[in-house]
C-alpha cells in the first residue's frame, strides 16, 4: 500500500462522513422534513470516496445520484447538502433542484440529472475539452449497472474510445436497478465485459474495498493521462437501502443483505487501518465526534436558513450573456 497515513485517514474520514451524513438525512426524511425524494448510497460509499481520492484536484467528476462521497471529498459542506434536501435558498441549487443533484464547477463536480447515463457522453466531452485545451486532466463518469443499458452508455463509450479521450467510466454495480435485479436486464454477469465492444480495458473490482477502488482508479487515470484512452471499471457492491427511502426493498432477499453487511466498506477499511496501526481507538473516537459535530452544525445552519421566495422560480432560466 503506497498510501501514506494522512491520506488513509482522510479517506476514512470522508467514508465515515458520507455514511453519517446520509444516516442523518434518513432521519430527516422520516421526520417528514424533506419535501422530495431521498436516494442514499449506504453500503457503496467506498467507491465515490476512494475514486475521488485517487484523482488530481483538477480532474472533473460527473457524479450520479448516490455519489455523495465525491462531493464531500471535494469539500462540499454538509450544510449545503442538508440545505439541498430541505429545499432551502442556501442550497447549491438555491432550491431549484433536490436530492443529490448538486454540482460545482469550482470543485470539479458535474451536477447529475435524473436521466441515467446522460453523464457518460458529457464526461467524454469534458475529456475532449481537456485534450483540446492541452490539459493533463481527465474526467470520470459514475453510473449504475442499470444505466449501462441505456443508449448513451454505448454512444459515450464508443465516442470516448474511438477518440482516445482521457476519461474513466466507473460502473457502480449495486445489483438492483430500482427493484429489478441485474440478471433480468442483461445477459452477462459483468458489465465490465461490455468494454470489449469498445476495445478498451474492462476491469471488475471489489467496490467495498476502498483501497482496491483507489488503486484501480489511480492506474486507469494514469493510462488516461498518458493518452491511452478510457477504461471501464466495474465496482461490485450492494445497495443496502431501498431505491429511495420510500421503498422498503422487500424484493431483496434478506440473506443477500446479511452477506453484504459483513462486507461493509467501513468495516473493511477499519480492519485494514487497525491492522496497519493507523487507526487507534482514540483516533476513531476523535473522528466520530468531529463528524458528529460537523453534521450537527451543518443541519443547524440548513434548518435555520430560509426557504426561497416563490418568485425565485422565475430567475435564472437563461444565463446573462457576456
Amino acid at each position: 500500500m503506497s498510501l501514506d497515513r494522512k491520506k488513509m485517514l482522510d479517506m476514512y474520514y470522508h467514508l465515515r462522513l458520507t455514511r453519517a451524513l446520509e444516516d442523518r438525512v434518513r432521519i430527516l426524511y422520516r421526520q417528514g422534513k424533506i419535501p422530495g425524494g431521498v436516494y442514499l448510497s449506504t453500503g457503496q460509499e467506498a467507491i465515490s470516496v476512494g475514486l475521488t481520492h485517487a484523482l488530481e484536484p483538477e480532474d472533473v467528476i460527473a457524479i450520479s445520484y448516490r455519489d455523495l462521497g465525491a462531493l464531500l471529498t471535494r469539500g462540499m459542506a454538509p450544510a449545503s447538502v442538508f440545505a439541498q434536501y430541505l429545499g432551502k435558498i442556501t442550497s447549491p441549487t438555491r432550491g431549484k433542484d433536490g436530492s443529490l443533484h448538486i454540482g460545482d464547477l469550482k470543485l470539479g463536480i458535474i451536477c447529475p440529472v435524473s436521466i441515467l447515463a446522460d453523464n457518460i457522453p458529457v464526461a467524454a466531452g469534458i475529456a475532449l475539452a481537456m485534450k483540446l485545451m492541452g490539459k493533463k486532466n481527465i474526467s470520470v463518469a459514475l453510473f449504475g449497472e442499470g444505466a449501462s443499458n441505456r443508449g448513451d452508455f454505448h454512444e459515450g463509450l464508443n465516442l470516448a474510445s474511438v477518440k482516445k479521450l482521457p476519461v474513466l467510466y466507473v460502473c457502480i454495480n449495486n445489483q438492483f436497478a430500482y427493484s429489478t435485479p441485474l440478471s433480468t436486464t442483461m445477459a452477462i454477469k459483468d458489465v465490465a465485459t461490455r468494454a470489449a465492444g469498445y476495445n478498451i480495458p474492462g476491469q471488475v473490482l471489489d467496490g467495498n474495498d476502498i483501497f482496491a477502488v483507489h488503486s484501480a482508479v489511480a492506474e486507469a487515470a494514469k493510462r488516461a493521462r498518458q493518452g491511452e484512452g478510457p477504461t471501464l471499471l466495474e465496482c461490485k457492491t450492494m445497495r443496502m437501502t431501498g431505491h429511495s427511502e420510500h421503498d422498503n426493498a422487500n424484493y431483496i432477499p434478506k440473506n443477500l443483505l446479511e452477506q453484504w453487511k459483513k462486507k461493509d466498506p467501513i468495516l473493511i477499511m477499519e480492519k485494514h487501518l487497525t491492522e496497519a496501526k493507523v487507526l487507534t481507538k482514540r483516533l476513531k473516537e476523535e473522528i466520530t465526534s468531529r463528524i458528529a459535530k460537523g453534521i450537527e452544525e451543518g443541519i443547524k445552519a440548513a434548518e435555520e436558513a430560509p426557504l426561497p421566495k416563490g418568485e425565485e422560480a422565475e430567475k435564472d432560466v437563461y444565463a446573462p450573456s457576456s
Partner: protein
Amino acid sequence: MAVLTYIEAIRQAMWEEMKRDEHVFILGEDVGRYGGAFKATQSLYQEFGPDRVIDTPISESAIVGAAIGAALMGMRPVAEMQFADFISCAFDQIVNFAAKSYYRWGAKVPLVIRAPSGGGVHGGPFHSQNPEGWFFHVPGLKVVAPSTPRDAKGLLKAAIRDDNPVIYFEHKLLYRRIKEEVDEGDYIVPLGRADIKREGKDLTVLTYGAMLHASIEAAQKVADEGIDAQVVDLRTLLPLDWEIIQECVKKTNRVLIVHEDTKTGGIGAELAATIADQTFEFLDAPIRRVASLDTPVPYSPPLEEYFLPNPKKIAAAMRDLARY
C-alpha cells in the same frame, strides 16, 4: 460586401468565429474532411484541422452530450445535426441536460446546435421536418431560424457567443437559392430581435425561415389588389420579440401567422394566444394561421406541395383577412 448564398454565410460565420476564438470547435457526422452533408463546413477541416472540426460516429445523443461537457469546461462547441429530423435522438441531452443546467446549478452551457430543417426538397418524412415546436416549449433554450444570408451569418455568430444553448435551424431550401450582399467581417444580429422585412399597413404576417420568402412573394401578389401586407421575420423563436410583435399588431390590426411546421401546437398557436390575450382591443379580425398539414411530411411532389404552405395559400389567407 460580397454576394453570399445562405449556406456560404453560415460557413463564413463559423470560419470567422473559429478564427476569433480558439474555444470554438465543430463536431458532427461527416463535418470534417468531407465538409458536411450539405457542405456547410467545407474547407474548415483543412483550415483548422481535425482537433477543431471533429467527425463523430452516428451518435446524435453523444454529439450533443459531448458538446455539453466541452461547453461546461469553457469551450464553445458548434454541433451539427446532419438533418434536423435526427435531433430527436439527442432530445434528452438537449432538454434535460443543456436547457436546465444554468437554472439548476448556475453552470453555463454555451452550445450551438445547427440543424438543417425544412421541406420542399422531396426529402420525405425523415429529411424534411421543422422540429422547432418541440424546442420552443423548453425553458432555457434559445431557438433561432434565419431566413436571409445576412441574418444567417449574424445570428450564428451571436449564437456562438451566447452563454446559453441555442438551436439554430437553417432551412435547407434556402441554402443555395437565396443570396444577397453580406458584410465581410465582424457583425452580429442580436438574438431575440425580430425584423420587419416588408413594411405594410393593412395586415401583419408573422413568419420565419423559408416561409419569409413565400410570404414576401404572397405580399407582392396581393399588393396589386390593394392589400398592403407588413411581413415580420421573427428570426429568433425563443425568446420571441414581443415588443415588435405588439407594435405591428397595433399598427395593422390584422395578423396572419405563417409557418412551415405543422399547425397544431406550433409556434403560431402561442403567438395567436398571446396576441389575443395582450392586444385583443387592437384586433379587427380573427388571427389566422397558415401552416403545414397535421401529417408527417409526405414524399411524392404533389403530396408535399399539398402539405406545405406556399405563396398562393398565403395570398389567399391575406385576402380573406383583409376582407374580414
